[in-house]
């Protein structure tokens, strides 16, 4: 399973590598990094598939976000915990095994606890396995850092992911259905923008969000900033 050819170099322009502990990093920084500065979706452009697929309502976004958070934290803690015993050759294989296990658990639990939401998320719960955020954090951070820091980092990234999903979900549900968490906002004669809950609406909303983020960063920097090139592909290059 280990693939030797595509080793470290690809990491440089992938997900930002956690800083080697030259100076002590405040726990707050570990936690908050993922929320905004290195937001997995808006900045690192990871985990696009669920961000687009399940955010047609706030409820779905929350469920997906929580499931991912669970898998992320669980996997990262475990990966960090066993990092000393796992030989390099089977590192990725064990990561995948761990993630798949957590996802299976999350999938079954969700189906038992909230069948309606499980049904509307459909295949996208098992697809958390291939969510690049999880592998990226496990590989880039958890496999090198202590359990505590990994947990904080995973929590931060998970929250960042949830926040983005929530943002998408809110925009799409309000425009697309005129409701928020199923409650009607504008009265019965509101004309829903059906497109927002359809696939094109997902692409367009996230595209527009990234556009705003790009515009905002450009304005803040006061000059051209490096384009946020997709980081997902190079990162997963390390995986197999």
């Amino acid at each position: 399973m280990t693939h030797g050819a595509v080793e470290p170099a690809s990491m440089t322009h992938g997900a930002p590598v956690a800083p080697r502990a030259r100076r002590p990093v405040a726990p707050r920084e570990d936690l908050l990094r993922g929320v905004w500065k290195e937001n997995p979706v808006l900045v690192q452009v990871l985990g696009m598939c669920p961000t687009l697929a399940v955010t047609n309502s706030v409820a779905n976004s929350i469920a997906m976000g929580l499931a991912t958070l669970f898998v992320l934290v669980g996997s990262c803690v475990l990966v960090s915990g066993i990092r000393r015993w796992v030989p390099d050759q089977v590192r990725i294989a064990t990561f995948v095994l761990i993630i798949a296990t957590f996802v299976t658990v999350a999938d079954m639990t969700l189906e038992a606890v909230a069948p309606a939401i499980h049904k509307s998320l459909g295949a996208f719960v098992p697809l958390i396995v291939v969510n690049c955020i999880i592998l990226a954090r496990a590989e880039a951070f958890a496999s090198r850092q202590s359990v505590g820091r990994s947990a904080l980092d995973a929590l931060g990234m998970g929250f960042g992911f949830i926040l983005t999903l929530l943002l998408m979900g809110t925009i799409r549900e309000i425009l697309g259905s005129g409701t928020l968490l199923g409650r009607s906002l504008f009265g019965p004669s509101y004309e829903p923008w059906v497109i927002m809950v359809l696939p094109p609406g997902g692409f367009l909303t996230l595209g527009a969000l990234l556009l705003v983020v790009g515009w905002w960063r450009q304005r803040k920097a006061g000059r051209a900033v490096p384009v946020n090139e997709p980081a997902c592909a190079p990162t997963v290059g390390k995986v197999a």
Partner: protein
Amino acid sequence: MGELTWIFVSAMVVNNFTLMLFLGLCPFIGVSNRIATALRMGAANTFVLVMTAVCVWVLNTFVLVYAPYLRLISFIVVIASLVQIVEMVIKKVSPVLFRELGIYLPLITTNCAILGLAIFQTSRGYDFLEGLSFAVGAGAGLTLALVLMASIRESSELANIPQPVRGTALVLLIAGSLSLAFMGFAGLLSSG
């Protein structure tokens, strides 16, 4: 026969994996800046999709009826090993092809399109031929989306795109437009 055609057309355009189901977005965003690359990536994906469909059919028929809870783990293990085997075989048989495809093959492992295919194939209970048709359709759809995106990106490289739009935002907005256009295929072959 009609059923197989419908499965193919549905997977290719009506419910295009990339543009309608958001599967396989990583290569769609990452390796869609050159037509030649996109074509190779599409071909590699289609190949692995077809192999996966076969393997998943075997798993579903002979293994998972006894241990349904191992579904996800077995799929991911099978896909990862499959990619590894394909890679080794290609390396052995055609070093030229390996050089061309080599860097994309590992990417396919974590391509959600492959796992998505496995999961859909299972949940829809496709038999062997249906699964094959589904995989070929999905592969053709992925390739189509990739090539369209690549050719559009190649031409928009020469355009004067506003700074904040460049990069992933532009890809997503183009994908949104493509997805809108693909809505024209809705209901294809099902109106009877």
